[in-house]
């Protein structure tokens, strides 16, 4: 069972795509049911179609290689091993939407991969998989290195980073990047894994892809597993796998809880391991699975997450900038035995505000870990604190 690691001749997907019209390519991707692998799960074919139909003098394809969600490292492996296929996916997207240029936004932490990625770009140019691809269709790619900012993995912040604009300052949505993205032109921002899968779908067909996964989450997902397991690493699983099956595969049975989707994801306690599945319609993830063994203090985990968000909030909108600090203080209060039920309730109320009123995905998703960890382990922590008092 493998999509990503299936046998593949580099160039096969691009050749197939170039034999089709852009509309047929979009149709094939739509039929496959492919959804964004960065975590948000937006249908890829629709994204391409919106960008194709939007007004603009030029269009851009941006590969989001800024994987910064804690616990995610699948793109690290993909960039190391499969940049040629990624470039093909970008060229296919470019043909579909009518773009001439693309960027790979590579996170600063992966600077050591820059020679690999640039080498693959040069090789693709020599091999005719970049450059002049068809009469009247040219496409080329360049890399921009990030410099360490989690929020730049959010597509609008990423675009602003490329533009030389301090993230968070200016943009509300709509309009979305597919209409007005990079330098206000229609822009497709896709995750590394999404683009690689698009290339494979073009080569093997949408039916091949749909044989894996669930009705609403077709295909497979790369999962980065870390924490208290015997075999951490990158795994490819079909959507719809239960947490229990996943833990069995990676040597993590006996865990107390699993954080799916990284710091911005949700915490699943052991009671739910056999019923909850990895899928957009159940527990969505960009690929991060962090496993906590029986001895772990979940308030320590939550404190680490909240420190992360306080540090990475761009500070532009108030609910996120101030809210994160209050949530962190609440967790610290619990850990030091100073908190009451009332503190927790106030923090949970604040979570609703943050979800509703934050401008981007960062502030909007902070309530995911806070509510789920607090919901499952807050009472236990408060009781412990009570005993100490």
């Amino acid at each position: 069972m493998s999509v990503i690691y299936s046998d593949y001749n580099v160039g096969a997907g691009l050749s197939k795509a170039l034999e089709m019209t852009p509309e047929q390519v979009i149709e094939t991707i739509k039929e496959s049911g492919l959804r964004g692998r960065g975590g948000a799960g937006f249908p890829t074919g629709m994204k391409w179609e919106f960008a194709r139909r939007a007004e603009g003098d030029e269009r851009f394809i941006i590969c989001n290689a800024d994987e910064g969600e804690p616990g995610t490292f699948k793109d690290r492996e993909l960039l190391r091993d499969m940049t040629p296929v990624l470039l093909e996916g970008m060229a296919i997207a470019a043909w579909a939407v009518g773009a001439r240029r693309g960027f790979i936004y590579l996170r600063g932490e992966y600077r050591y991969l820059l020679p690999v990625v640039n080498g693959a770009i040069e090789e693709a140019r020599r091999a005719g998989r970049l450059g002049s691809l068809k009469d009247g269709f040219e496409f080329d790619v360049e890399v921009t290195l990030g410099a360490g900012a989690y929020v730049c993995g959010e597509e609008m912040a990423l675009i602003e980073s490329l533009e030389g604009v301090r993230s968070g300052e200016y943009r509300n949505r709509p309009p979305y990047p597919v209409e007005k993205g990079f330098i206000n032109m229609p822009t497709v921002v896709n995750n590394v894994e999404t683009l690689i899968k698009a290339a494979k779908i073009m080569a093997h067909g949408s039916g091949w892809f749909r044989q894996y996964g669930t009705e609403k989450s077709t295909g497979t997902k790369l999962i980065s597993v870390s924490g208290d397991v015997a075999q951490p690493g990158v795994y490819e699983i079909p959507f719809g796998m239960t947490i229990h099956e996943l833990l069995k595969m990676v040597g993590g049975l006996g865990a107390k809880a699993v954080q799916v989707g990284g710091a911005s994801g949700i915490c699943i306690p052991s009671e739910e391991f056999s019923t909850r599945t990895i899928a957009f319609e159940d527990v969505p993830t960009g690929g991060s699975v962090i496993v906590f063994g029986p001895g772990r203090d979940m308030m320590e985990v939550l404190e680490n997450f909240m420190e992360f968000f306080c540090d990475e909030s761009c500070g532009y909108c108030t609910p996120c900038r101030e809210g994160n600090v209050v949530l962190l203080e609440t967790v610290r209060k619990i850990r030091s035995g100073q908190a009451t039920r009332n503190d927790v309730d106030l923090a949970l109320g604040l979570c609703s505000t943050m979800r509703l009123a934050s401008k981007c995905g960062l502030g909007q998703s902070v309530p995911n870990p806070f509510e789920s960890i607090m919901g499952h382990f807050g009472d236990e922590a408060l009781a412990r604190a009570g005993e100490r008092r």
Partner: protein
Amino acid sequence: MSTNELTRQIKEEIEELSRKRNLPRHTLLMNSLHRIQEEYGYIPDFAMQELSEITGIAPAEVNAYVSFYHFFSTEPTGRHKVWFCRTISCHLAGKDQIVKAVQDRFGVKMGQTTPDGRFTFAFTNCMGMCDKGPAMLIDGETYTKLTPEKVLEILEKYE
């Protein structure tokens, strides 16, 4: 660097990128900053001033942009920049012991530079080495599965 203007070489490289891309000049900022930091070890004030002229972005906005990123520094740093991952998986894997070993050996805290100017140590967030933690970056190279002994051995190799 005693000079307080950007070298001709850097300016030419930025102009070359600009010609090649033919995009609005403000899009040159990120690439230019990486090049400048590579040259000077940090982003000096005069460089931000000149970048403002080159890109058409107000100086204060260039400064705001620079300050937004973990990996850009507006102050001179040690010869080697060492970043320790402090995020969850590296935390669970024992990053506190690694950091303690380093602080004990060099007598400085995170965010500080050793008196001999050899190292600047700092925390950073998840660096994508969660399956191999605890992890650190030295001048862009990654080191993983650190132990208190191993981290000191590695650091000794950097002059």
